């Protein structure tokens, strides 16, 4: 626990894990030690479903530039979808 920088948000979606697709309920975002990326710290995102146990996880580990680019690209794609009237809102 070297940075303790972590956030959790509730989400609704699907993710493909080691045993196939499952419902996503939470996303855990941290800036801390990655497991695989060869860096001391990384922006880590774990898409999980806590009710299904620790193994229900889709993990990504990004360097800072990639994480910022991803966040910007997500917002841009959503902006384009909104502009085009494609967003499906309940």
């Amino acid at each position, binding site marked *: *626990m*070297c*940075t*303790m920088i*972590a956030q*959790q948000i509730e989400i609704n979606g699907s993710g493909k894990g080691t045993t196939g697709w499952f419902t996503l309920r939470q996303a*855990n975002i*941290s800036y*801390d*030690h990655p*497991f695989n990326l*060869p*860096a*001391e*710290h990384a922006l*880590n995102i*774990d898409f*999980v479903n*806590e009710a299904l*146990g*620790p*193994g229900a*996880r889709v*993990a990504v580990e990004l360097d800072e530039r990639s994480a910022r680019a991803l966040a910007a690209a997500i917002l841009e794609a959503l902006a384009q979808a909104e502009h085009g009237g494609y967003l499906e809102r309940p």
Partner: protein
Amino acid sequence: MYQTDQYEGMLAETVMYPGHQGQLINAYFARPLGAGPFPGLVVIHHLPGWDEWYRETTRKFAHHGYLAFSPNLYYRDGHGAPEDVAAKVRAAGGVADDQVMGDVAGALDYLRSLPYCSGKVGVFGTCSGGRHAFLAACRVKGFAAAVDCWGGRVVMSKDELTPKQPVAPVDYIADLSCPLLGIFGEEDQSPTPEQVDLLEQALKQHGKSYEFHRYPNAGHGFFYHNRANYRQAQAVDGWEKLFAFLARYLKNA
């Protein structure tokens, strides 16, 4: 030092034992075969969890003649691949210091109860485990030596404190009750060289017995041979210093 005509045997297995508040948790226990008596070592795993490197390291300590006992600090967070469990704990902001201290105290009691334990027990950890090792050396009475390898957040500012980490470990320094070995990389970001200096100043101010080694061209976790930050020469020297320190206080004292 191992001799080629020497008998050697080892038993390594998972066991259950009472940790914090008497709750049963599991631990990986590697020990030399024989009547002993052997010194003990509580091996506190790092943020990436109770993983293969910690299994290997626990056996390494047993090979060097220690009853090496590595509690699964994440036992209460569910079971699965070590990375998956550790990711869950990482998202939750880690485990509470009080709980870890309870688990470490239970491990110390377990080791000292064994008929083949000499009664001399140390505590070792890396990364968050290094921080926990320092904290245990202050808060848990009975350790004869402590090894903090690049433990971050030993020196903490007030805004870094959390409900799980309500007190900076350095604030317990007056209670440090055994010699401390610190091994650090000069390129580490947590702890930074400045934080290591602050810790050393506090140790001096309180007249504590300690030995620090700072390695150039090494960052965080430079013993981890499975990671890009492994530094061969520094790691070999660090292990030599570490085993010399443990022998001095746990075998020869």
